């Protein structure tokens, strides 16, 4: 059995096992067991991958497996991973694991909740292992649809509205994406041979530039909507605010990464010429995202809204880096996806834990949390410091790689945007410290808070897992960065073969 298929099989089996559980305690135990296996598998995969590479295997994708499942359209279940997808799988493993423990006391329809959650995870894992565009798209949809149920049923606030909005906007993105992918499929064989959905095979040929010009915006925007591309990001604040804790964690932590990953793996990789021509438009949009999201976050009062806008800013940086189209910037984009995935999951976990105790998410109604809940307070500060890019935590590594990559462009346009993006590190510091100051520090405003309990064991487990991952990347980033770098080479080669002439507005 291919190890990669286990990543789909284990969640499916876990879901199936959950059906037979009798109460919440059994359900969560099964879910936790399944996702622990998944986390261990992710770790094993990382080691196996590194071992293969050290043994001198230079294939573009490792652990590949291919099975035809829909002959008339030549759709394959083709899987394989490189350093980038291994990193994303590890991220997903960690976030899902933490998510299960963060929703340990989900009493309402717990079986259905955990099944939906794990189904979502299945989609994400499947997406990252797929090499066949159609299968990839299928997993993408599998990941997006449970979201509607998860928010609509277990959410809070205007949950039906948010769930509908999120689903419709993401489905809109899927529609655009479908056009893009179909277009790629129909141009996948210029010499009249059989058409293919296989990513690697398509990357070997050149899609005609005229078609690229047409298909690139569809594909890029289609993925970009999930990656919170301005101005299509507005599902994110409402969606996150209404979603239950674990769903916010998974959604911001890994689902949004599908957007960045897809934009990079499909849109940029397969259509580099069009990407270079049109990059300037999207660079402006993502440049706006970065600064705009940060400024938007300053004014928010709801913790989840703050974090949602912060995600707009940070995910904007991912797409921004992807569009800079050089190796360093790509590396930064992947690192930023992982880093943001970890820290935003941590934020949402903490927000959920604090909300579960105080029953409010409005920062001006709280204060002095640090005194009553020192553990949660300290972890919140760590998450905040990671978010504002403190060295020693993951955010710094990612942001610096992006800035140095982007700065390799010497023209005024790129330089200007890069400098503009760097200003976000100051604005981020403002909104993070504002929250830390109001929420955690200062005197306790509400005396009901005096008797609140600090984190329980499962909450500690959930947050410590994430903190450890954030610190590990922040302290020793070299192995991860190198693992990604090696896999970037074929991609960068293809792009540089397309010629690196920057055309456009400037």
């Amino acid at each position: 059995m291919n190890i990669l298929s286990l990543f789909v099989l284990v969640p499916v089996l876990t879901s199936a096992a959950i059906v037979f559980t009798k109460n919440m305690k059994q359900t969560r135990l099964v879910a936790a067991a399944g996702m622990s296996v998944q986390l261990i598998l992710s770790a094993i995969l990382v080691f196996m991958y590194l071992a293969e590479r050290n043994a001198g295997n230079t294939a573009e994708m490792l652990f590949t497996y291919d099975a035809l499942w829909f002959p008339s359209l030549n759709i394959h279940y083709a899987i394989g991973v490189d350093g980038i997808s291994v990193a994303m799988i590890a991220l997903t493993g960690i976030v899902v694991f933490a998510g299960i423990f963060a929703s340990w006391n989900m009493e309402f329809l717990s079986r259905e909740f955990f099944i939906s959650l794990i189904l979502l995870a299945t989609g994400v894992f499947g997406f990252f292992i797929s090499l066949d565009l159609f299968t990839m798209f299928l997993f993408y949809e599998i990941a997006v649809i449970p979201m509607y149920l998860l928010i609509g049923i277990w959410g809070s606030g205007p949950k039906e509205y948010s769930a509908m909005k999120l689903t419709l906007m993401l489905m809109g993105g899927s529609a655009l994406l479908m056009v893009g992918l179909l277009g790629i499929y129909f141009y996948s064989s210029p010499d009249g041979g059989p058409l293919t959905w296989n990513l690697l095979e398509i990357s070997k040929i050149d899609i005609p530039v005229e078609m690229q010009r047409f298909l690139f915006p569809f594909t890029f925007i289609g993925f970009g909507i999930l990656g919170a591309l301005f101005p299509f990001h507005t599902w994110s604040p409402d969606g996150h605010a209404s979603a239950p804790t674990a769903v916010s964690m998974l959604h911001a932590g890994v689902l949004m990464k599908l957007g960045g990953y897809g934009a990079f793996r499909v849109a940029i990789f397969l259509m580099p010429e069009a990407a270079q021509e049109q990059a300037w438009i999207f660079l402006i949009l993502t440049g706006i995202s970065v600064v705009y999201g940060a400024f938007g976050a300053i004014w928010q009062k709801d913790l989840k809204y703050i974090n949602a806008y912060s995600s707009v800013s940070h995910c904007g940086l991912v797409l921004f880096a992807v569009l800079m189209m050089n190796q360093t910037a790509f590396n930064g984009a992947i690192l930023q996806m992982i880093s943001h995935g970890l820290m935003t999951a941590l934020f949402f976990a903490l927000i959920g834990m604090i909300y579960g105790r105080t029953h409010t998410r409005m920062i001006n109604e709280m204060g002095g949390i640090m005194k009553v809940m020192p553990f949660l307070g300290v972890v919140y500060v760590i998450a905040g410091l990671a978010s504002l890019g403190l060295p020693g935590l993951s955010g710094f590594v990612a942001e610096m790689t992006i800035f140095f990559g982007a700065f390799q462009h010497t023209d005024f346009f790129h330089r200007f945007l890069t400098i503009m993006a760097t200003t976000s590190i100051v604005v981020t510091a403002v909104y993070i410290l504002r929250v830390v100051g109001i929420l955690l520090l200062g005197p306790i405003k509400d005396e009901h808070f005096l008797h609140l309990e600090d984190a329980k064991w499962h909450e500690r487990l959930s947050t410590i897992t994430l903190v450890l991952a954030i610190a590990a990347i922040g302290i020793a980033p070299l192995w991860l960065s190198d693992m990604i770098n090696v896999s970037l080479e074929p991609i960068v080669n293809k792009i540089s073969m397309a010629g690196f002439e920057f055309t456009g507005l400037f």
Partner: protein
Amino acid sequence: MIDYTYTLLIPLIPLAVFLFTGLAGHKMNPKVSGLIGTTGLFAVTILSYLTAIRYFWTDHLHGSGYQAMKAFEIEWLHLTEKLTINLGVLLDPISVMMLIVVSTVSFMVHIYSLGYMKGERGFARFFTFLSLFSFSMLGLVLATNIFQMYIFWELVGVSSFLLIGFYYEKPSAVAASKKAFIVTRFADLGFLIGILMLSFMTDTFDFRTLVSPTGPAMLQAGSATFMGLSAITWALIFIFMGGAGKSAMFPLHIWLPDAMEGPTPVSALIHAATMVVAGVYLVARLFPVYSMVAPDALHVVAWVGGLSSLFAAIIACTQTDIKRVLAYSTMSQIGYMMLALGVSGYGGHDGLGFMAGNFHLFTHAMFKALLFLGAGAIIHAVHSNDMRDMGGLRKYLPITHITFLIACLTIAGIPPLSGFFSKDEILVAAYHHSMPLFIIEFAVAGLTAFYMFRLYYSIFWGKHTHYHHTPHEAPATMTIPLMILAFGAVFSGFLPFHELVTSDGLPFEAHINYGIAIPSVLIGVLGIVVATLMYRKETAVPAKMAGGFGSFYTWAYHKFYMDEVYLFVTKKILFNLVSRPVAWFDRHIVDGFMNLIARVIEKSSYLIKGLQSGRIQQYGYVFVTGTIVLVIIFVFIL
């Protein structure tokens, strides 16, 4: 080559202490945390002194000058093909000198804090943060490359944030810590942009390569120009912006007075002796580049330093919070150091300013830490920061009084105390370079003596205040560091800096220039005399003087309204004119547009849903009407 690999332990010991007390501190007796921290710093101090003795004296081969050497280095991250971030330990005269400064002051502060913080709720946390700070500061000092310096630069920033906000239940402390972090962060943005530019031009982060006279940086003098300055000049000005933020230079100084909300030992360590001089250290690190390829950037350094020192000295004359007086004094003295670097040339006697700036950094660390720790002992005794609540304390606090007096005389530049020597060298360097700057600094020397003795007399002489509890001298844990630092303040002036810390590593001859030394001592004495007349006994003179200066006094008292300007920019402009409209725009325009699409679809579906009513009669009517219309069209129109 002599093996210095053990110097790696110097930053790693505080890191280990930080991790240990941070993770296990709440399970131990707080005192144990304090003792572990202090012991760790003691080990660091021993290693630092050992390194200094070996580097400067025992292992030094005469004649070849002091070379920079890498004791240790590892790769941390690859950025591009050419740029790699390393972490390591660099030993050269200024880093070894800084090791002495940081370890001495930090060790003294640790001992002092054992007494000062006794019984505080966050005792263990305090020592944990102190270890974090010591680690970061030592990492910064020992950085082999500019990016490592940036990494630790941020880490000292966050340690400073944590320590200023130590009393986190106090809103003013929280606000001050936030302000310090954000203002310096803004300055660090400049630093980052500077690094981006510099590394792009030179393809290296490494200090030794950057400052090498044959290195890539030196070829950049004629690089592309922007607004009349070469690209490397801009890069260095941006880097200096980072230094100006950390070192509280005008106009990025506003966080420093507020940072006095932190516990007093923290002010002594971070906001007087070590972190705030990081900017000076940064410029000194890159000094050959500044000096050889970007003299314009060096002029900026000189003038920012000179004006900051004057600006701060004027404000210091009007403040009544003793820690704030010292904070402005720190800003003023750092201005001196910046100015010294700014007026310096490279090599030989031309490098007098470089030597003087570092010399002053060293002596200042001793006497300013002493002043702050003395202020801590005073605050400990009278439970107030305001000099108006004090007076006549010399009887109650004899040790504090004597050591404080020594520090005041030192900062006033009275020979043969250390401040005299270092300040004199700075004035000489300024005199040779720029007359206006010399005059400013000369005036500041007088002002410094005046405001320090205003402070001294108001605390220890002046009116006889009645205290609720009789003030008593601090415990030995606090007075012993005072005495040790007083010893340093008195005698560190005799260190042969012109042989040890020079711009090119080679010793040069330095003499006291009596033409400048005598007037500068005289103006210091004049400042003391004026302060004695005004403040030794309670008189009406100060009030009259203040009245005489009129609105100038009011402006200085309100710190020239810089805080108000900043509040206006942040609150009114950034919050209300940028952030709030952005939030509104997002909710109402961007999201509104999405909702509008949804509503249009919904409305149009209402409009057309009537067509699918399921009633046969309606379908029949539509069918018949449609047929008739079609028939009419086909028969009569077409």
